[in-house]
């Protein structure tokens, strides 16, 4: 706890709480925490107006480490708690930190509904494709055939793709970044915080204890140029070390074109954050046949739940000639004895 108010210019240190960080050494969560703490002073939101809410899981310890208001709640329910807080306190900047198990398994329903309502909160979903806190069972984003303690012969169910789920719920801001890509991660989270409405950010996060290297095909330094497709609004979908590959439409599908071998830059798709159909197609791309898109898939404007709710209340207050309690009690037919 600190006694100073936030009048002075804040630094990263102001957002570091006095609690020891207890993630496993080498966990991808450290990097995410550092980027968020670094970014916070630049967002122009007072520390006391910032609230981090989480559920249960490794990622959900996040609020303890932020020197803001925080609420470490119960498994899967952070979006619901955040909705109640933001709807009744639109003046606050509300963040939800969740994981693939917390957000897409036990809390899947709440995640869908916070997204469709477009409550003005920022959701960071740390996807490590495993249950870490309970020591290594497969998660709803684990690839089919995943061998874990709970699936010794391999999992038989198909995974969810967080970005596709968010787009299906018509989330107004959907993005992906990577724990170790400090600059990209900061830029994406900054965009998320600036977006009015629900911002959904999937962060590919390495659990070095129970699922080490789950995303190494995407994140490895020497491979990433070939395996990441960095999305930029209004720019063609180009990737590759030499920026010599791109994505174009072929019928109803996307395909990779080699710009050195007959492909032309003018055939390539131009990224458009407003185009829902394109965002959906992009969300299905994954290695090995495609690079994994990172960046902002979709960003559109829609009225937010909290602002619309507040507007209804304000309008009702304006319209009511007399909103004192006695008037309320005496509504309808009354009689005197």
């Amino acid at each position, binding site marked *: *706890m600190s006694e100073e108010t936030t009048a002075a210019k804040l630094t990263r240190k102001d957002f570091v709480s006095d609690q020891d960080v207890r993630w496993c050494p080498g966990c991808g969560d450290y990097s995410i925490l550092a980027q968020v703490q670094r970014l916070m002073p630049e967002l122009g939101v007072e520390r*006391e107006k910032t609230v981090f809410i989480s559920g249960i899981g490794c990622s959900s310890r996040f609020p303890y480490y932020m020197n803001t208001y925080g609420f470490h709640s119960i498994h899967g329910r952070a979006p619901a708690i955040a*909705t*109640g807080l933001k709807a009744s306190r639109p003046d606050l900047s509300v963040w939800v930190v969740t994981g693939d198990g917390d957000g897409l398994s036990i809390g899947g329903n709440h995640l869908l509904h916070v997204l469709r309502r477009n409550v003005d909160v920022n959701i960071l979903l740390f996807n490590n494709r495993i249950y870490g806190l309970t020591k290594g069972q497969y998660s709803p984003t684990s690839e089919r055939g995943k061998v874990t303690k709970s699936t010794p012969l391999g999992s038989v169910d198909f995974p969810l793709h967080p970005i596709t789920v968010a787009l299906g719920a018509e989330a107004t801001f959907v993005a992906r970044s990577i724990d170790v890509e400090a600059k990209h991660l900061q830029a994406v989270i900054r965009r998320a915080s600036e977006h009015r409405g629900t911002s959904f950010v999937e962060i590919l996060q390495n659990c070095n204890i129970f699922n080490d290297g789950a995303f190494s095909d995407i994140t490895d330094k020497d491979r990433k140029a070939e395996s990441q497709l960095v999305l930029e609004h209004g720019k063609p979908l180009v990737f590759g070390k030499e920026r010599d590959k791109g994505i174009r439409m072929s019928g109803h599908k996307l395909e990779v074109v080699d710009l050195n071998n007959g492909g032309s830059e003018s055939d390539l798709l131009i990224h458009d954050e407003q185009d829902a159909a394109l965002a959906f197609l992009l969300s299905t791309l994954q290695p090995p046949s495609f690079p994994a898109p990172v960046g902002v898939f979709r960003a559109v404007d829609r009225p937010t739940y909290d602002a619309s709710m507040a507007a209804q209340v304000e309008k009702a207050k304006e319209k009511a000639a007399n909103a004192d309690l*006695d008037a309320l009690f005496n509504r309808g037919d009354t009689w005197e004895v």
Partner: protein
Amino acid sequence: MQSETVAEKAIEERDRVVIRFAGDSGDGMQLAGMHFTNETALAGNDLSTLPDFPAEIRAPAGTLAGVSGFQLHFSSLDIFTPGDQPDVLVAMNPAALKVNVGDLPSNGILIVDKEQFTDQNIKKAEFTESPLTDGSLDRYQVFEVSITKLTLNALNDMGLPTRTMMRSRNFFALGLTSWLFQRDIEPTLRWIDAKFAKKPEIAEANRRVLKAGYNYGETAEVFRTAYKVKAAEIAPGRYRNITGNTAASLGLIAAARRADLRLFLGTYPITPASDILHELASHKEYDVYTFQAEDEIAGVGAALGAAFGGAVAVTSTSGPGICLKSETINLAVSVELPLVIADIQRGGPSTGLPTKTEQADLMLAMYGRNSDSPVPILAPATPADCFSVAYEAVRIAIRYMTPVFFLSDGYLANGAEPWRIPEAAKLPPVEVEFRKDPKGFFPYLRNRETLSRPWAIPGTPGLEHRVGGIEKDYLTGNVSYAPMNHEQMVRVRARKIAGIVREIPPTEVNGPAEGDLLILGWGSTYGSIESATRALQAEGEKVAHAHIRFINPLPPDLNEILTRYERVLVPELNMGQLVRMLRAEYLVDAIGLSKVQGQPFKVSEIVRKAKSLLGKNQ
């Protein structure tokens, strides 16, 4: 009983009348009952109602499963229950007759819609012969009225489809009974005009049929006598008729206004609690925020989020919803934030009897969470009492930084009675003190008297802190797994709730201060127990009635009161839940009386049990 003749019809005075409207669930019986109730309230009678409807919105028309009923007891004297048996039964079809006629005493008045007794309907109601002709109704005063035909006649020049015209039949029944008991139909006419302002032809149809029913009673040579029930002598003041759910809603709004805080309801529709959502949603001008969540869990989660932000937070539900909310309620216990949980109980287990009443969630409210997790429980005794108990629940929640159960039930929720309207300025204060000062602030530093922790809401500079469901340090609130700290926290949470006894006024005992029998109740059994107690007292029995509003903690004087009577009887609409708590708490040989039929106690059922305990077996 005296008689006088006015306009060729006798008017007979009665002290009390019980009337039951029964028909198909599509026949509008609840509406007819509600308006008869309103007319009766405006006539100054004391009253009590019992709506009784099927869970299916539209069971197949004409079947026994589809019968919906509304019972009203009104009187020139004090009354406490909707009445054990109807004196008058209005049956709109054979199925309604079949389901209800068994409750009608000999010589009771039975009004039926003659045209509905077709062969087909008689068969659907599982009669072999028409009950109108087989002599089975001989012991009643039967009035066969052509309600369908007279309704259609009244509307025949309006060019409305038959289906639409048929929908007004309930207004004929209402008009007729309004005449029979000399009720003024003006308020109902006003309501029709307001309700159907945008559908003038429907308004006109309902007006016409209502008047046709009234005039039929007055002029047709069918009814020779009308009845009059004089106004009751009740405490002076301004009154309105109110259901439990409306009263609870107003209590919540009032408490939030008095606390000068936003009211936030997070909820999910469920019978019989949804009317709290509907009522609150229509009062946004009082700074009321209602959130219809995606499920029960999100409803209470959002409420808890709002509590963290400094709102008066409420979630409303029924038993199945409490099961889903348990984990969040426990989180509220752990993070010590104020939250009112309105459980409008219904028959269970599981989906059970959604539209029928029961008091069987007491153990669930008391113990239905993992670990040692004390939550205060308050229960209203009557529909109007829902106002003050909901208000008190908010006050306790804030003062003690705790979730609080408001344990109502379907009978209170939908039942109505006259409510003496309070003056807002005279309501008790609801004090709120948000922590502002960072100096010496610790999230779990407790108030010495109440043991509650400070309410430090986001937006307050210098008080940034984290709360959560993990066990926390006694002072700082930081995560702590230390063994002794955990025991200290479990104990202090228990002591905090136990300390709420200081808020409980002395228990009122109606009857002798000591004697042969104390009938102890909680919640909606109030009316039946009070009526039974008075009946027994009138026979000279040394019987008293005490009714507790606080169930957790129990009133501090209760133990001593229990010792002053030879026997203690605890009637409950469950298999014996409070009685179990009392036996465990006080080692008293309290005896339970259970009823689990989805219906309130009849007065006679309690009297019979009391007499058997008093050694007076009839």
